[in-house]
């Protein structure tokens, strides 16, 4: 269970990639081409088409098909307060879920790093939420868990003075975030646990001999050691959670009102309920631009986390 550094390390063979003959160069490129072409075609073309439609007036439910409208879709997007609030909601929801999941993840990982009876079984129990189909998790939380009249959560909280709370209508945002946290904490646990198990035990022993208390040891030694793992967990968790759709669609359908309408759900609604392909495309283009800005930082972080070596 150790880190990271050889992932992006240069070729295993030590054969210099530079200075190979032209024929050899193509022979090297050949195995890469199918995957490269496939990825370019499947992931880039839809975005080019999106760019095209963003300048078109195109509604599913109106005859006549698409026609050019210039930037009017963009004007609409930028003046639409619900787009802006969907962006903000997506960002805050992702941030809260990822950070809480990470804090819990570190705590539980520290616990799982101790030796105790049945640790393997407990570990297995704990990773299970991550494996449950998100659609199933959303529906089970919305029904058997959070139902106001017979949900398990209300039953468990009754001793604490909670009486038949309709969580999905009064605390919709929080409920969705809780389910996200429940599903993604195991992910963080696994990543942090790998970090803990990669920590050299002699350093910790030395700290103990020097009389450092547990908290100081954790703060001064363990946490800095965990840093790349935590960064990686936050980065990957954010990539997945910012696109989270299932929970919103199946637990609250974006409501009540628009209180849980995240960006993915906003775009989904625009295409499926407003039939507004052009408007959705413009909102999509803006989303992609925002994503590229964030992603360029994320990629830099990636490079740092992976301790990218210069190619030899």
């Amino acid at each position: 269970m150790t880190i990271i550094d050889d992932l992006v390390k240069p070729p295993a063979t030590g054969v210099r990639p530079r200075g190979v003959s032209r024929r050899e160069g193509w022979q090297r490129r050949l195995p890469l081409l199918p995957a490269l072409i496939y990825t370019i075609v499947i992931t880039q073309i839809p975005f080019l088409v999106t760019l095209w439609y963003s300048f078109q007036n195109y509604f599913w439910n109106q005859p006549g098909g698409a026609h050019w409208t210039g930037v009017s879709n963009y004007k609409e997007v930028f003046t639409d307060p619900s787009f802006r609030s969907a962006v903000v909601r997506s960002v805050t929801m992702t941030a809260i879920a990822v950070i809480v999941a990470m804090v819990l993840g570190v705590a539980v990982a520290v616990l799982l790093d101790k030796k105790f009876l049945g640790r393997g079984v407990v570990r297995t129990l704990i990773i299970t939420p991550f494996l449950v189909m998100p659609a199933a998790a959303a529906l089970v939380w919305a029904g058997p868990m959070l139902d106001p009249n017979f949900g398990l959560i209300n039953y468990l909280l009754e001793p604490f003075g909670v009486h038949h709370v309709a969580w999905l209508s009064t605390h919709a945002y929080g409920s969705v975030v809780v389910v996200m946290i429940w599903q993604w904490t195991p992910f963080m646990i696994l990543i942090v646990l790998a970090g803990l198990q990669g920590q050299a035990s002699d350093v910790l022993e030395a700290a103990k001999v020097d009389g450092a208390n547990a908290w100081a040891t954790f703060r001064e030694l363990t946490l800095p050691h965990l840093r790349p793992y935590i960064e990686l967990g936050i980065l990957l968790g954010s990539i997945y959670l910012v696109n989270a759709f299932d929970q919103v669609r199946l637990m609250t359908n974006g409501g009540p009102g628009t209180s849980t309408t995240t960006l993915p759900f906003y775009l989904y609604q625009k295409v499926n309920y407003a039939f507004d392909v052009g408007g959705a495309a413009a909102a999509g283009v803006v989303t992609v631009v925002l994503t590229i800005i964030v992603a360029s930082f994320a990629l830099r972080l990636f490079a740092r986390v992976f301790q990218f070596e210069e190619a030899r």
Partner: protein
Amino acid sequence: MTAVTAAEAPSRTSRRARNRARELTRKTGWTVLGWVVGIAFFLPVLWMVITAFKPESAAETWPPKFIFSPTLAQFRLVFSGMGPYLEHSALATVGSTILVLVLAIPAAYALAIRPVKHWRDGLFFFISTKMLPIVAAIGPLYVIALKAHLLDTIWVLIILYAAMNLPLAIWMIRSFMLEVPTEMLEAARLDGAGRIREIIEVIMPVVIPGVVSTALICVIFAWNELFLALNLTVTNAATMPMFLISSVPQEGLYIAHLSAAATVASVPVIIVGWVAQRSLVRGLSMGAIK
């Protein structure tokens, strides 16, 4: 140490005993805490499974029932309606995973063993596609699928799920290929082995376990996917997550039925995940953590 006096000896043993007792208390403490946390995380899953065995009338009661006579009625109902959805999910999952491996293994080779000049840019190109929000292109994707006659077919899911999992698979398989000992590759080359032989005889035997765990991770993500399936399929290719949605009726009692459907839909992937537990971290971190 022969000079231990009679007076010292008992105090030393008692100290040792005290230490052992303290050690035991601490271990008991961690055990209790560990199990409490474990069960807390698992509770919703457990509740889902318990509810699945209830008759509908016992599922919607206050207070919730913990003692009831279990029934398989809900499962029977689920199995009777699930056939086509299960088939579509299986085809989309297996098909896309095979496609991913066919594309990813040679690509990983070209990024690890005999690398192309810009192998680093290649790696980052693949990972960057993972950050593009597919939701942004959903309208156009629908139009493209419609024009290509792929709408509501398994093919559209296979194609898109493969694209979705390909970056992860390339990064992960590459990380396994980097573990192939250089000496083995050199020995094979001295023997005059070409690329194909090198891949089949030297690399594959070493990376097969890695390829299997990569495949399992791809299976998990493809099986669980809802957004694309919901937007691009209706009936001819509707998958298990959509079956779940269909098990929630507009009115009437449904909690037990839903729980049974959710259990059936989740169990395959839960088992895959438990089996692949050891390599789960590596897959989820794109091969970054071993």
